[in-house]
């Protein structure tokens, strides 16, 4: 145990040797979920049959085993910064005068500043073993691009990241960080791919989206010798790799004699949410001890709370296979909110299924309310959260206030998925009162879903 300096409370200090030895595969515990269910992509070129995934990763993504061993080399990398701290937010509790106990798992402690490094390292390892020489990807706010650039540097791989244009413009230091780690950053949409050029032809001022950047990254990886596409969220193997978060949190909070009534995380496609929540889902099944699992999304991109559960593409142009997911339509372009990592049209297929089955719940907030919550958290805990992570904080504060009103002594655990030290421009905008409060317009959602219906009918 160690004593937290800011609260004097003893918290569990897991040793590096206590990094999980296995990833947890929630698919093994989802009766009725079919992981291979997919509609093939349309073919466009001779290169289309080149596997974009190492076979080892594919096997992980469709495995029925509940636990998959972490390669020793990957675990050794994890031990550089894991286990990450579980922190009791006592000052926040005191500020809110709540009887609830609030804990957060601080993934901002990783060298890349977020949870993204957990899968970046694993993927770079497997792609290197497969003989790949370059990884190509799409990144929103840049957390994933940073992590992948770092992981590629660890394994002597080149890294190319298509970064959503509005985030590329909003967060110039994030670009610098990716480049300092040896990565190349291309603002998306760009003219170096046919996908990007077609988008710009229709809308020269397009702010971009993760699904557009994905289209570009897929195209670029397909036509570049030695390169393959790497996903930062959504796919089963990515969610799998992130479960080190929840497994550690489970051990840490248990060692304190506590257990969460609710686990909360922001949701873009779902990797940080799955990372912390899925191990608690398993515990609920094994022990009967119920824990609510709450995903928090932005009102600007509310795929769970306002999307539909249907087959959709993973990219903007419909060049990838289709999966069944909660989606706003692959052509939906969210407004340029500062939580760029949450601006993706669809939720991970496995989480979509769980939401459809009522196993997880979801709420949505506008970004002004999110930044207000972040400001409260900063005043109390003196940690700057990433705007993405702050979505979870908004729910946590609201829940803790309700606990105060009802006198509920519950335990709340959330994933602080990344620090916000590269997002101070966003905080400056909020402090100056210039932050727009965006909500996805009904017309935009309807248009994108109509486009999806038209495309799937072809």
């Amino acid at each position, binding site marked *: 145990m160690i004593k937290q300096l800011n609260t004097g409370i003893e918290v569990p200090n897991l040793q590096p040797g206590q990094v999980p030895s296995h990833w947890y595969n929630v698919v093994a515990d989802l009766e009725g979920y079919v992981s291979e269910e997919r509609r*093939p992509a349309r073919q466009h070129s001779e290169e*289309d049959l080149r596997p974009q*995934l*190492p*076979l080892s990763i594919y096997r992980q993504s469709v495995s029925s085993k509940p636990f998959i061993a972490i390669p020793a080399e990957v675990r050794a990398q994890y031990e550089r910064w894991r286990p990450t701290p579980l922190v009791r937010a006592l000052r926040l509790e005191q500020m809110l005068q709540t009887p609830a106990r609030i804990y957060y798992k601080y993934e901002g402690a990783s060298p890349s500043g977020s949870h993204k490094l957990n899968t970046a390292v694993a993927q770079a390892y497997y792609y290197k073993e497969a003989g790949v020489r370059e990884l190509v990807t799409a990144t929103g706010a840049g957390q994933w691009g940073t992590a992948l650039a770092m992981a590629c540097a660890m394994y002597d791989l080149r890294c190319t990241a298509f970064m959503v244009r509005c985030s590329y413009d909003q967060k110039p230091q994030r670009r610098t960080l990716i480049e300092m780690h040896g990565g190349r950053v291309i603002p998306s949409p760009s003219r170096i791919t046919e996908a990007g050029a077609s988008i710009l032809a229709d809308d020269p001022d397009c702010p971009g989206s993760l699904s557009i950047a994905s289209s570009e990254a897929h195209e670029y990886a397909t036509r570049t010798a030695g390169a393959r596409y790497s996903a930062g969220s959504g796919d089963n193997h990515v969610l799998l790799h992130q479960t080190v978060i929840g497994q550690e949190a489970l051990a840490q909070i248990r060692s304190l004699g506590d257990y969460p009534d609710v686990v909360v995380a922001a949701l873009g496609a779902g990797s940080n949410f799955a990372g912390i929540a899925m191990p608690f889902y398993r515990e609920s099944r094994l022990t009967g001890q119920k824990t609510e699992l709450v995903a928090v999304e932005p009102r600007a991109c509310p795929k769970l709370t306002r999307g539909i559960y249907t087959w959709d593409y993973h990219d903007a142009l419909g060049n990838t296979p289709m999966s069944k997911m909660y989606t706003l339509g692959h052509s939906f372009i969210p407004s340029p909110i500062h939580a760029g990592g949450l601006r993706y049209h669809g939720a991970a297929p496995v989480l979509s299924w769980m939401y459809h089955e009522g196993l997880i719940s979801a709420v949505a907030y506008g970004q002004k309310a999110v930044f207000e919550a972040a400001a409260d958290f900063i005043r109390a805990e003196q940690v700057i959260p990433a705007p993405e992570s702050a979505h979870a904080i908004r729910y946590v504060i609201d829940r803790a206030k309700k606990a105060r009103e009802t006198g509920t002594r519950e335990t709340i655990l959330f994933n602080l998925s990344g620090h916000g030290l590269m997002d101070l421009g966003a905080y400056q905008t909020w402090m100056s009162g210039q932050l727009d409060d965006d909500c996805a317009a009904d017309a935009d959602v309807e248009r994108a879903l109509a486009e999806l219906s038209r495309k799937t009918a072809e």
Partner: protein
Amino acid sequence: MNFESSTNSVAVSVKQVLISVLELQLEVSELDEGLSLRSDAIGMDSLTLLHIIAKLEQELSFEIDDEAMMSAKLVDVGSLVELVRSHVVGRPAGNEASSAKYEAIE
């Protein structure tokens, strides 16, 4: 089982899995090994290819290493049969893994 019948049984297994996964309205004997994997009749994408390989690995109790799969040049049904055959009938000895063993991936 002799080498020739092992080879033939691999070909049959590959075709059976292709027909099953891709829901082809064909008998095994009707699936021509010269048929392109990119043809409309097959309609395969890269993820489906991995799915088929993973299924064959389970059915025929073999494993293809990641580098071999990533560098495989698969054109038609016959090339897929050959890839699987080379790992089932002529299993590589030991675990020697050398990047020089495979052509650089494209």
